[in-house]
């Protein structure tokens, strides 16, 4: 069975961004998204998920390269200056190309 190339854009950041990120993902044309609760640490210190202000999420979207690129650009410009945030992309293969 053949797989089709897509991009997976992964955004790790403050839980406060969840609503906005979901809205953005939809408006930039991602067909879906998946979110997990995570904890972690980076430039902006440790985020241990002990209480509201300290929670982080990891959001992943599978989409075509163009959508991933535009969404990433928007997220970087809108949130990266002020929020704990990590972004990366990876190449993935999907089986149902029309779905993503």
């Amino acid at each position: 069975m053949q797989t089709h190339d897509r991009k997976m854009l992964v955004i790790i950041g403050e839980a406060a961004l969840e609503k906005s990120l979901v809205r953005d993902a939809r408006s930039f044309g991602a067909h879906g998204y998946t979110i997990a609760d995570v904890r972690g640490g980076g430039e902006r210190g440790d985020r241990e998920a002990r209480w509201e202000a300290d929670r982080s999420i990891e959001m992943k979207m599978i989409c075509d390269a163009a959508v991933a690129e535009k969404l990433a650009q928007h997220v970087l410009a809108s949130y990266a200056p002020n929020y704990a945030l990590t972004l990366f992309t990876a190449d993935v293969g999907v089986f149902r190309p029309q779905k993503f």
Partner: protein
Amino acid sequence: MDPVVLFFLLGLIARIAKSDLRLPESLYDALAIYLLLAIGLKGGVQLAQQPLATVLPQALAAIALGACIPLLAFPILRLKLARADAASIAAHYGSVSVVTFAVATSFLAAQSVATESYMPLIVALMEAPGIVVGIVLARTGSAQRIAWGALAHEVLFGKSVLLLLGGLAIGALIGPEGMEPIAPLFTDLFKGVLALFLLEMGLVAGGQIGDLKRAGPFLTAFGVGAPLAFGLLGALVGHLLGLSVGGAAVLAALAASASYIAAPTAMRIAVPEANPALSIGVALGVTFPFNLFVGIPVYLHYARWFGGS
């Protein structure tokens, strides 16, 4: 000092000593929901026995008090801080800490000092105004616009206001008899749950010490001076409104307290350029414990002083 405050101390010690004690996230959420609802219910039952119109002046005054505090705090904070940070911290102090309210109420009860029955309504009303003023302060003279619609929604349907007001409404509708079957959960357990929540608050506050050190002495001093000053203002307003000594002391504690449930969430969205480590550090790392251990008895003194007793 209320015995439950020792639980805060235990949590603080555990965190500072890097113990592996950690309350599950969902327990934190569950306890917070319980406390808000229980406070609302209790207030509602008492409100039911009183014509609502008589509370109107106090309600309006409380809203005004919450809105004024950031205006007083902001210029002082601006001496050392960027606009966004000053505005955000001001917003935290304009809003209120529900747990400080609970501890103050229980302290007064232990001292046999009566308080007005509608104080939980005052708590609900004082959650939001300070936050709104803080956001306006942050945006004044800036190109960024305020999303008034989203803000209004946040203010009215944010978790804490919704649970407080929802509890109040249910309490008022069901009255004392309706409350009876749910009282074992919402009344009898209240103090114990408050103790557990304070344990968790101690664990969280202990984690703010590092941020606080980085923030420096100015903010630490503010974290002590602000509650003393705003508490005085609150006691004065309470006195002028004709509240009892207990009521004025509670209003003082509310004015002196800084929010760490509603305000951090709201400011993170509305004023993202403000550094949350500063506002949470001072609100939770300094003012909250200061109020628990020192402030609350002081506010009762204030109230007695104005009350002339």
